[in-house]
């Protein structure tokens, strides 16, 4: 997983979270076309020889493969963006372009890190404001999530509410790849 923190404007902090997988769409398409070509050629030849029941099975299977490849490729484009300025916390989630946006009042927001009930399971990180919570970084590794929680707490929560600006804390880039 990758986590990035940016600090262009001192009063604004921005965190970009994205899955740690490369997007190799072209390779995926090539491999799918190769598999489909082989499978359909085989099934079609058998169908011409009179053994047509192979063809629908091949079609079903290739459909399933195509859907699986598409879904997993789309997931690779998943993004979460957290923007914290002097008064608001904005969370955007989506693929390539954000399709869901949450806006919270900074003074009324807090960072929650819920420990797992067992060391095997991950913790859960969320930003909560006025009874509503948005989970963040569920796809991050434990280490990255803890690091992100620490970063977020420097600009969201009681200290921030007391007037320390988001950019006041030392920036710690936690991009990992």
């Amino acid at each position, binding site marked *: 997983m990758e986590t990035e923190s940016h600090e262009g404007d001192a009063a604004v902090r921005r965190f970009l979270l994205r899955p740690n*997988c490369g997007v190799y769409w072209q390779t995926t398409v090539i491999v799918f076309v190769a598999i489909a070509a082989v499978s359909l050629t085989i099934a079609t030849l*058998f169908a011409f020889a009179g053994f047509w029941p192979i063809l629908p099975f091949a079609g079903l299977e290739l459909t399933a*493969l195509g859907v699986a490849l598409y879904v997993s490729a789309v997931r*690779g484009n998943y993004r979460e963006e957290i923007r914290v300025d002097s008064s608001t916390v904005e969370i955007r989630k989506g693929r390539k372009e954000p399709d869901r946006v949450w806006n919270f009042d900074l003074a009324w927001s807090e960072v929650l890190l819920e420990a797992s009930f067992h060391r095997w399971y991950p913790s859960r990180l969320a930003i909560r404001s006025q009874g509503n919570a948005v989970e963040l970084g569920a796809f991050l590794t434990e280490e*990255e999530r803890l690091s992100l929680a620490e970063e977020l707490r420097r600009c969201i929560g009681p200290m921030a509410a007391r007037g320390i600006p988001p950019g006041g804390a030392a920036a710690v880039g936690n991009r990992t790849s």
Partner: protein
Amino acid sequence: MTATTHDTHDAHHHGPPPGFFKRWLFTTNHKDLGVLYMLFGLLMFFVGGAMAMVIRAELFQPGLNLVDPHFFNQMTTMHALVMIFGAVMPAFTGLANWLIPVQIGAPDMALPRINNWAFWLLPAGFVLLLATLFLPGGAPAGGWTMYPPLVLQLGDSFPFLIFAVHILGISSIMGSINIVATILNMRAPGMTLMKMPLFVWAWLITAFLIVAVMPVLAGAVTMLLTDQYFGTSFFSAAGGGDPVMFQHIFWFFGHPEVYILILPAFGIVSAIIPTFARKPLFGYSSMVYATASIAFLSFIVWGHHMFTVGMPLAGQLFFMYATMLVAVPTGVKIFNWMATMWQGSMTFETPMLFSIAFVLLFTIGGLSGVMLALAPVDLQYHDTYFVVAHFHYVLVTGAVFSIMAAVYFWLPKWTGNMYDEKLGKWHFWLSTITVNVLFFPQHFLGLAGMPRRIPDYAVQFAEFNMISSIGGFAFGLSQLLFVYIIVKCVRGGEKATSEVWEGARGLEWTLPSPAPYHTFETPPVVK
């Protein structure tokens, strides 16, 4: 836009609910499912092994001694189905589940819920298949190849067999689709195809084969079903069909299936030998191309399984030469493994011993395969114990030995404990000696003309059969030691380091031992 709703979008990323049954039933974690696949494979190895013991006990002496011939035929048929679809394929899929994500730097498989479903279809399929043992008329007894018209005379077990094959096929396909999607879409940035470990490459090509040929098997068994119950005549000569075409269709699936059972083994051995030779794998690219070449050739050699059905000379020549061509990329692999070992700082821990045995004994199976590829010779060897010896050298000392090597190699990574090396070596030597006592005499039996799938035989074959049976019993007992070593390692032992083996290279060795439930506390760096 402002939305203030509780977000549950990513709830599935978390671990399964607490509780033993909920965890293992509903888990979507690739490591949990890898463990389940491997345990299932181990269980089926013993179920199929028990059937083999029945076969060897019956063949210990000439004459009908222990079981009636019909039950003997059930054992030969079920032994093959259980070992192929229940033991070897699930064990390799388990290894793929456990290892592929950690080797490519992915947090999990691409489709975790489908992964869960793919696994739990397996026990369902095998309940259906093994239940046939208790049906009137018993289990399928016409051979795992399901040739009509014999298979249509099975009675009550026939539809169970067909549906079990369908369920196991769906499981395989779902597992393969998941593997393809994971490898193509979940690799860490920088992990290009030609940087992938060979185990991942081998599985990508294996998954390709499964996706390509499973519809052929599904179609073939469906046509058997419709021939039996819906009045079609795909393979019924009486209705204008052609039973020999079933053999063509079956082996069009069946030969790639053979490579489905061995290509992952190539990947495993290609990981282990460089580790204990402390040298990089010789000829990585040629290994990839050789694996792909073997996969391609697997589509055009099916005819060598059926030289005796009556085939035009051109067909015999084509299949003979095409089959012999398989020896070329396979030879490249064997050469590369030997070149990797050449002048390496070799040590001989149990995984390495099993890998070296794999190279030597798989080569014996490969060479007897070249003999069987020769059409005029095959007419003599067909359906004899020579064929039985050949494919057991490939599948037991090939596929099964590679799985054992893999278990010893990665067990410290899975459990966090080192296994008992002394017992591991005992297991290796017992297995290697007894497996040769078991299968090598079968070459001589076959060359002398003993047919396969018979419960009784001429007295001239008595000595070699007795030797083979003694080897079989000893090999079976040796595997109890394997289970003991695994259990002992799971329960405790010397703590393993992250790297585990001095010469180990790859992303999985950057993880702590045991690897955390969710992978990559230390994010992968792909150089």
